[in-house]
């Protein structure tokens, strides 16, 4: 039954955005934990640990996000688990975000000159203390603009969760299109909502980057 596209539909679309943001938040937290681990692995002095981190990044950055979604959602059900879209999405995005955030944060850690580590060591600070008091605060400042930039990528990438039936903005758009048969208008609205979410963040990232460069 075809229904006319109404303002209510627009409200439903906007409401669905909260799941987009929720998934983004979960991906960011999960990915953040993974990313931190990867970044530390990659700068570790122990070669096998470094290798582990490198392989993880290479594999995740060399496979499509869709593949992870499908493996978790369709693949794992073979083993007798019923994997809900939420679990599949949370796992896939955490793995995915972990690799990219790990690379970004590794770059920031490595951008701190060796001399900073040495200064800390010669003051008698242990490795963990060097990280905590000297390196991480500086790396954090460097990391904020690209991390905000990646947040924008995450928001956009949550749109793929629609293909495993995860209800977020894009899925809501598909459902609305199915009932109103107005794909052009619906997807235009969907795009506009994404734009409204992403564009301000992009600008924030840009401003932060500029301020960072001026400060250095």
């Amino acid at each position: 039954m075809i229904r006319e596209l109404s303002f209510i539909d627009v409200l439903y679309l906007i409401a669905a955005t909260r799941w987009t943001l929720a998934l983004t938040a979960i991906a960011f937290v999960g990915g953040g934990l993974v990313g931190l681990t990867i970044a530390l692995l990659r700068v570790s002095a122990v070669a096998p640990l470094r290798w582990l981190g490198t392989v993880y990044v290479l594999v995740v950055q060399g496979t499509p996000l869709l593949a992870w979604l499908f493996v978790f959602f369709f693949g794992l059900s073979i083993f007798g688990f019923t994997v809900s879209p939420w679990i599949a999405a949370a796992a896939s995005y955490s793995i995915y975000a972990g690799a990219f955030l790990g690379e970004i944060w590794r770059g920031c850690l490595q951008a701190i000159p060796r001399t900073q580590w040495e200064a800390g060591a010669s003051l008698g600070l242990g490795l963990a203390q060097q990280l905590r008091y000297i390196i991480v605060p500086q790396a954090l400042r460097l990391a904020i603009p690209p991390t905000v930039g990646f947040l924008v990528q995450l928001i956009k990438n949550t749109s793929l969760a629609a293909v495993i039936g995860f209800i977020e903005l894009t899925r809501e758009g598909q459902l609305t299109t199915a009932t109103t048969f107005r794909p052009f208008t619906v997807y235009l609205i969907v795009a506009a909502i994404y734009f409204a979410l992403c564009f301000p963040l992009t600008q924030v990232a840009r401003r932060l980057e500029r301020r960072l460069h001026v400060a250095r």
Partner: protein
Amino acid sequence: MTYSFQFRDVFTAWEFLLDGLILTLELSLVTMVVGLLIGLAGAAGRVYGPSWIRRPVAVYVETIRNTPLIVQLFLIFFGLPSAGIKFDADTAAFIALAINLGAYSIEIIRAGLEAIPRSQIEAGQSLGLSGLQVFRHVIVFPALKLIYPALASQFVLLMLATSVVSQISAQDLFHMASIIQSRTFRDFEVYILVAAAYLALAMIFRLLFAGLYQLVFARR
């Protein structure tokens, strides 16, 4: 757990996978070429052009970069027909991917162009070169050399992103995974295998790009 992996069933469907692979490669390569051209033209317009070129390019770049690829794809494949423009799945895929990559390429190449010092341009102009000649002989090569790694990364990301066209039933490598799955019900094996195929492709592309850099930009 009484499940036994049956990769053989998936392997015997290799012809499907090959067909899908071919479309994925076609999509990737054509998009890269078109994306590079859009990137060069757009970046040049953005950096050197008058405001009536700069503003539309900026709008194009910001719109594409702040909306998801799948939504852009749906707009072109599902949305445009209601405006009278109908594309088949493959064509819609090409268009969406090219428009998408073009926007990202413009940003990357723009950074390269802006990194060329003004003094280089002045030196070229002082020798009597026209603007276009300065662009072609003095700016393009060093700028591309500078941003080559970033652009190559973006191209590999694009190759992986082509998997999204499976959602409009374009018969790419990822779509073939679904087809094989529906015939063999070997979900896990199929998707793992296809993921591995993409990984191999990504590695090969990276190697090729590195080789291309040596060929074109590194001086022997």
